[in-house]
């Protein structure tokens, strides 16, 4: 399912893929409408706006209004996709998302871009390191975190078909394409083993999946076989693959561009504690705020890039 050569794979921004897929969906389905809150040029919903101006609504800098307008549109049979930065979609509009969209089980797709640390230079106020926790706790909401452009397209298309609220967490930078387009298929609610291994299980979601894969390659040269699992569906989550892997390796390391509290690491700990208690270490933002910097600098500073993953594995595993 993976591309042949990870080191040399092309890069594509998930937000660009998102914008393009929206346009394609717009062609296919008259009911697709798109909303933004004065960030259309950043989130790439501007592509849809250009192609289908009458089905695009820029609600200005008003995120509660954004969410509730989408809710209203959904009641008339439209399929609203909305975007803005993740911190605003989930933070400023949490209550409309919860009480209006999810409680009413409305067919709204919340697809913010610029989640996590890789938003970069804008700094802490704009870096959502909490949105997985914020969305995972809402009943009725499906939470998806695509790892690359291929998965992004599949996720957006899947969300368009699924009836009900879906959250898709996207990021700003160009991300290496890890999935082979021709062989890739989205498996709803499943985790996928992207690379088999026996010594430790690395679980990533979104951007960190690539870093986990690279770390695994480097570890392999040191005689450590890390199994790498991709977790695109944070909720609902069928932990089958995780449990099988943990049974084999006995150690799980989670990696996320998110607070280590309540996010992917939290979901993994909850699943394992219930079904197969296993030692887990969580890489991610260690409960502090983000800061300005390039995506790369921040992934290093906050210890979630491939080097940090490699180091964490080496520190954890018994000496060879």
């Amino acid at each position, binding site marked *: 399912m993976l591309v042949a050569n990870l080191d040399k794979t092309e890069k594509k921004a998930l937000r660009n893929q998102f914008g393009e897929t929206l346009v394609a969906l717009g062609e296919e389905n008259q009911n697709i409408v798109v909303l933004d809150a004065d960030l259309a040029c950043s989130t790439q919903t501007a592509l849809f706006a250009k192609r289908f101006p009458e089905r695009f609504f820029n609600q200005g800098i008003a995120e509660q209004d954004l969410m509730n307008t989408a809710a209203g549109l959904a009641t008339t049979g439209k399929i609203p996709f909305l975007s803005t930065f993740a911190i605003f979609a989930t933070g400023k509009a949490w209550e409309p998302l919860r009480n209006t969209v999810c409680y*009413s089980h409305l067919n709204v797709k919340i697809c913010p871009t610029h989640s996590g640390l890789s938003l970069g230079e804008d700094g802490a106020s704009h870096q959502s390191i909490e949105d997985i926790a914020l969305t995972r706790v809402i009943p009725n909401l499906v939470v998806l975190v695509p790892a690359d452009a291929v998965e992004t397209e599949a996720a957006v298309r899947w969300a368009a078909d699924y009836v009900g609220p879906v959250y898709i967490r996207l990021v700003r930078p160009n991300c290496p394409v890890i999935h082979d387009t021709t062989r890739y298929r989205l498996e709803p609610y499943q985790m996928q083993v992207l690379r088999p291994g026996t010594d430790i299980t690395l679980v990533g979601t979104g951007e960190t999946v690539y870093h986990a894969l690279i770390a695994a390659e480097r570890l392999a040269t040191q005689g450590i076989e890390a199994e790498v699992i991709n977790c695109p569906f944070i909720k609902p989550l069928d932990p089958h693959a995780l449990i099988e892997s943990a049974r084999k390796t006995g150690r799980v390391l989670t990696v996320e561009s998110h607070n280590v509290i309540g996010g992917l690491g939290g979901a993994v700990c909850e699943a394992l504690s219930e079904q197969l208690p296993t030692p887990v270490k969580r890489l991610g933002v260690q409960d502090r705020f983000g800061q300005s910097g390039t995506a790369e600098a921040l992934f290093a500073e906050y210890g979630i890039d491939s080097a940090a993953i490699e180091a964490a594995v080496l520190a954890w595993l018994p000496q060879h």
Partner: protein
Amino acid sequence: MLPETSPLTTTTDAVTPHSPLSRDALPTLAAKLRLDILQMIFEAQSGHPGSSLSCIDLLVSLWFAHMRHTAAQAKWPQRDRFVMSKGHGAPALYAVLMEAGYIPKEEISTLRKVHSNLQGHPASRYVAGVDVSTGSLGQGLSCAVGMALGLRLDQSPARVYALLGDGECQEGNTWEAVMSAAHHQVSRLTAIVDRNRLQIDGSTESIKALGDLAPKFEAFGWNTLTIDGHDFDQIHQALMEADRLAESSTRPTVIIANTVKGKGVSFMENQAGWHGKAPNAEQFEQAMTELQATYSRLLAS
């Protein structure tokens, strides 16, 4: 709970909307529904009598004389839409929806009980006739704008109504929506503000003064109409005028309906304390006696 249905459910059957009641029938019906409201809240020993009595005349006018809709096809695409933005007025809405056939009458005694459809605040998953759940204030007007935008895309003639509390106009989301509606020129949207001058902790003017609401909406680009929200003629005329404005102007219209919180029950009228408190047996009896007297008088006249 209701079975899951697609919002796109359409029908090839001809739909006959509920035929409007005559002007004369409205006060009598409102008087009757006031009895239902009290009944519900008393049995639940919980709920918002003041808020419900304040808006029931407006709801009766809308649902029985003005809106095009039918319980036989609750999801009829051409139906006029209604958003109960002040969701805590649920007993008033439930009384209307029961009368209009959306909710079985026998559910009247289930308000606010476990497993009931009559949730404390109107929930679309539980009750036909409710398109979007409310309860958290400030959100309904944006929802209504979204509905108006969706209907306009479909070239539907349907109108959209939203009922807001006056205290609810302190919520920023309300003003986001006010700005949005004007910008999008959704002239088929009519907001009605239940201007009873009370919120939970006291008078709106003492808590966070709303002052004159009409100039605020005007400054934001709306048509405004101010009426007595218990005068059925004025309500009717305002709704007709809103219809005219929907075609003659590009602006949405707000009806500022001056009302009396607790209207119809002497000891509840204009009392913040009756915002969200159920009467005890004695109070209930007195309230019912008063409401019954009004109802009988209207029936007889």
